[in-house]
């Protein structure tokens, strides 16, 4: 029973979504204390892409043999490979010993670059995007938020996730949000269980898609990526997903300028929706929306098979 939350300021308005999403996810902590993830959409800088990657799992940092030296080596290897393919890193930040954020300029084949980097042991690309910042780690929202300096992040929309691991391990690899590799700025959070995971995963893998974890939620990200790859728009891909994907789910998808939600045919997983002229807030429980809007608001539960998409 994970907790998911999403928010979008309409009409291009921006706000301190970093603090807002932290508050929302902290209110949902009881739904999943294992890990917390944020996908925040800020202002895109011309020609610059943001790369977020990690070179080790948190657990490895405590138990791994000679891990501290390896982490330094792995990062150096990433730098070398970026340079090799002609990516120019303009800014580097280190959030934790094992997680990094790079600004880089690159005109070549993005998929090739990512595959080349992930070929390195322990290296996983969390996200690449012009507007997207994807952050996920162990701990509750406040811990992760402070560790990665999320409060004060100004943007238009965000999705977030507090995870209670049921189907796979407690590690960063299986934490949400999932980035829809290799597409810029697409991320997914999900609450539920997918029952035809292996059937669909094998089908997508045959068509050349990669899976980095054994977490069923990753399927939705890959499914959306596949749909975008085939030129389908977000809303119709999501509508199709309600028929194609089996199981109980409520999920949120964000792109550089859109936020979408979909519910399964049984309406088995919760979602509370608040919509005003300037703002849309969604969460597994109303307490999350109330953490940023303490005054009385009108909210409702969307029905089964419902798909909605909003633009920033």
């Amino acid at each position, binding site marked *: 029973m994970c907790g998911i939350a999403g928010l979008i300021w309409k009409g291009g308005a921006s706000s301190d979504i970093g603090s807002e999403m932290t508050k929302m996810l902290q209110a949902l902590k009881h739904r999943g204390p294992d890990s917390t993830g944020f996908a925040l959409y800020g202002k895109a800088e011309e020609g610059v892409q943001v790369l977020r990657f990690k070179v080790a799992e948190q657990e490895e940092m405590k138990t791994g043999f000679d891990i501290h030296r390896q982490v330094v080596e792995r990062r150096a290897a990433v730098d070398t490979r970026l340079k090799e393919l002609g990516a120019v890193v303009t800014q580097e930040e280190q959030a934790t010993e094992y997680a990094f954020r790079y600004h880089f300029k690159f005109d070549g084949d993005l998929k090739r670059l990512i595959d080349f980097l992930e070929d390195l042991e322990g290296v996983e690309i969390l996200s690449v995007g012009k507007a997207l910042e994807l952050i996920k780690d162990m701990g509750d929202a406040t811990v992760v938020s402070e560790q990665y300096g999320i409060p004060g992040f100004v943007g238009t929309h965000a999705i977030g996730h507090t995870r209670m691991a049921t189907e796979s391990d407690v590690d960063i690899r299986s934490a949400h949000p999932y980035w829809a590799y290799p597409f810029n700025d697409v991320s997914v959070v999900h609450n539920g269980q997918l029952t035809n995971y292996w059937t669909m995963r094998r089908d997508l893998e045959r068509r050349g898609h990669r899976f980095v974890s054994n977490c069923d939620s990753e399927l939705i990200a890959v499914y959306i990526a596949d749909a975008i790859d085939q030129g389908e728009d977000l809303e119709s891909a999501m509508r199709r997903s309600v028929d194609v994907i089996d199981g109980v789910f409520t999920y949120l998808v964000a792109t550089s300028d859109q936020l979408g939600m979909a519910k399964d045919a*049984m*309406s088995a997983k*919760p979602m509370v929706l608040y919509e005003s002229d300037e703002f849309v807030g969604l969460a597994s*429980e*109303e*307490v999350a929306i109330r953490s940023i809007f303490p005054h*009385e608001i*009108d909210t409702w*539960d969307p029905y*089964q098979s419902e798909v909605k998409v909003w633009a920033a």
Partner: protein
Amino acid sequence: MGGITNSTSTGAVTASHNMGLHEEQLGGRTQQRFFSASEEENFTYPWAYEVDTNKSAEFDAADMEITDINLKIRDLMKAGHGTITVQNPRAKHSLGVGILNKLNLNFEGSLGYFGGGCTDGANIHISGRVGWSCAENMMSGTIVIEKNAGSLFGAAIRGGDLVCKGQAGARVGIDQKGGTIIVGGSVGAFTGFMMQRGRMIILGDASDNLGDSMYDGTIYVAGKIASLGVDCVETEMTDLDRRYLKGKLDLYGMAAPNGIENMIKLTSGKQLWNYDNLEASEKKLVL
């Protein structure tokens, strides 16, 4: 008829005789207790509070934890307050639960999950909305919600009136065992799923699989029905139904949008009633 008798033809005493299995009354092993209308304990709870509804109190719950809010309500009841107003509940879960005496409880705001659950006799008014599983297992009393309700609204209620003036989510009145659920707006999928007794009045539209696998009970719908579930059938509306609907709706200041005469009455077709048929092996035993 052969079957089982209280005495054996040989008169031999077997282990089953010593266990009392041949006696009409089991030897003190049964946990079954029989209801006696004269016993006081059947109507009151020893831990229910004596309250005076003219004595009122209110407090602000904005910065309080869930447990503290419920304890505060209990403390006020202990002090004899019969009308309690809680301000700023802010969609917290499990508020106003387990109240077993008469009480007028007002929430000025919204509740989260399980609001007003397991109550017996309290009159609760909520000016905002409620989350999932509101009034779960309510025994008696009334709960009135001014705005929308989440899924599992009135799950397994056994009595009392549960009223939502807005729309409700999926699985309204799942496993309902008595009482009345009234929803002013539309309801989601699987409303009345495995309903066993009681009545449900829906003034808006009903979504897919209405009354799926219902055992018994009645559902009245004023709006459109997307689809009926297995063994839920439309039946004839009688004068008694119309009088009942008018009385109930008037009580809460509500009205059917197209008039009570255009409402549809649904009940169980009882085609799935196989559970009282004996298994083949059991039949052999009896015959």
